[in-house]
């Protein structure tokens, strides 16, 4: 009895020490993650500083990319344009498809089919980026080159005013269009998974009420499910957009890596991520070119941070309740 009473205080003190240590470790690791993000932003900014200094704000809208010594000139417009356009095009293709997949998985598919199909779609998200790149280059690009580009160029290219968007002098097949297509396939599972999860969270009573009134499946989706999940659906789309903006290897394989402003969907182009992947390993340490690439990296970080932050805020409101 007295023994236990004597032991208790010292035991508690020992526990307190362990508690303080463990809590400190956990807190420290948490703060480390915060510092990590800060350090990434700061490092990219400091690395890009010489380029920002040399070219000023003009860096943002210059299309120059000339590594000739003494007359070096670098601008960010072409990669930024390629990044944004390829990502937006990818979203335009991926969102309807992802919606279709999510709707199929939550409402249409028989229960025995949901799990295998859902798993297959998730595996699509697990395939590494470089595999998409190889598949894109050796399977998709020849298809685009031989069938899609000529067909679209001959038909839509004849439309006055906007026809130039579809007609290109480049017939390699590696183009903005191919990049957008590969990106669309890559982000489809992410958007579909988010949509499926939030569709599944709609209270069954709401849907049953609508079905009870005689609504068709599409009407239930259109008037009950979509309004209920709107915020999260947009969040899922932003998540896909964030992924598409920063995707590197797959795009590098199929975009053609040409540093000039594309006028057509089928022109080769470049993105921030792919120009960094292509040119950074070969650039001289501390050169202005390296600094320009770091500056581009900083811009990409800012763009994707904003998109991903919006996505998180939108998704949190529903998912975490």
């Amino acid at each position, binding site marked *: 009895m007295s023994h236990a009473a004597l032991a208790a205080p010292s035991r508690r003190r020992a526990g307190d020490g362990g508690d303080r240590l463990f809590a400190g470790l956990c807190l420290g690791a*948490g703060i480390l*993650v915060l510092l990590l993000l800060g350090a990434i932003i700061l*490092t990219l900014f400091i690395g890009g500083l010489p380029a920002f200094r040399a070219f000023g704000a003009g860096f943002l809208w210059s299309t120059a990319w000339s590594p000739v010594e003494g007359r070096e000139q670098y601008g960010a417009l072409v990669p930024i344009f390629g990044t944004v356009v390829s990502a937006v095009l990818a979203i335009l293709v991926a969102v309807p498809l992802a919606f279709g997949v999510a709707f199929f998985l939550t409402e249409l598919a028989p229960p025995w089919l949901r799990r295998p199909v859902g798993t297959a779609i998730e595996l699509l998200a697990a395939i590494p*980026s470089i595999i998409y790149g190889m598949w894109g280059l050796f399977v998709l690009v020849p298809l685009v080159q031989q069938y899609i580009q000529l067909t679209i160029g001959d038909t839509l290219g004849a439309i006055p005013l906007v026809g130039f968007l579809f007609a290109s002098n480049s017939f390699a097949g590696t183009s903005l269009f191919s990049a957008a297509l590969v990106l669309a396939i890559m982000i489809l599972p992410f958007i579909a998974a988010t949509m499926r999860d939030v569709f599944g969270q709609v209270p069954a009573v709401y849907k049953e009420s609508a079905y009870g009134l005689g609504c068709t499946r599409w*009407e239930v989706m259109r008037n009950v499910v979509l309004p209920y999940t709107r915020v999260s659906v947009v969040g899922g789309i932003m998540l896909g957009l964030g992924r598409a903006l920063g995707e*590197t290897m797959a795009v590098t394989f199929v975009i053609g890596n040409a540093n000039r402003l594309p006028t057509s969907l089928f022109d080769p182009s470049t993105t921030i991520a792919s120009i960094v992947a292509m040119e950074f390993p070969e650039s001289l340490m501390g050169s202005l070119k390296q600094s320009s690439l770091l500056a581009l990296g900083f811009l990409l970080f800012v763009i*994707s941070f904003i998109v991903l932050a919006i996505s998180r805020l939108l998704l949190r409101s529903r998912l975490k309740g």
Partner: protein
Amino acid sequence: MSTTTLPALSPVKDPAVAASLGRRRKRLDALLRWFCIGATALALLFLASILLTLILRGLEGLHWTTFTREFQPTTYGDPEAPTGGLLHAIIGSLIQTAIATAVGTPIGLLVGTYLAEYARGSLLGNAVRFVSDVLLSAPSILIGLFIYQLVVLPMGGFSGIAGALALAIIVIPVVVRTTEDMLQLLPNTLREAVVGLGAPKWKMITLVAYRAALPGIVTGILLAVARIAGETAPLLLTSFGNSVLSTDLARSMSSLPIAIYQQANSGFPDLIAIAWAGALIVTAGVLVLNIVARFAVRPRG
């Protein structure tokens, strides 16, 4: 009063109109159904095409020498020359993935524990969760640039350790997410029971909570390994790749994705065949890890 407005509001009174409206609604519904089935079929077709291409072309390039030899220049035009393999890349990938997992997992575990056990709802906790979520989807090539500035520049050259560190940063948010989710699934009564027995909180977490959440935590680690096993972009700027077998962490080191990237873009059919073999190895590994991770977590629902 309302009888004056009702006929205008309900054309349904007219059987012909009602029937045509019903047909239109049904047709729209059927159209949407076919669109959704088509979209799902298309997504599955993409997956099938990728896997089929990998298997067909990968098996063509796969040979036992793939696992026993290092990189060799192309045999194009010289059938006598020895074909190369991917031994240097496989070893390099294993080393970097192992170090990255060993470094990233404990940090991720601690952060996840902080979020689930200590920071519930606090401002700092929300900030950490938010930043971790952003890092989860942040462009991996920027992590490569970050490590380049932080490690490669001071060391004066590309190195295996730089590659491993870049991958470790990618591991952290994956482990954080699954650890936090799994710990939050545990019933509070479990925690109360342990603390009620007089155990300090840290023992409650390490001896009981971790054990209860183990399948989930293992899933997170497997998913993280699967994720970094296929990462290419950050390695391009950190460990750069090497055409010979090297286990020296202070020098440039090859990895499967980098070897695939370099040989796929070489333009020589025999090197491209080896790249396909590598692609098959990587994808098989990644998909197996994913499927195992899914099964590991299934009993918990």
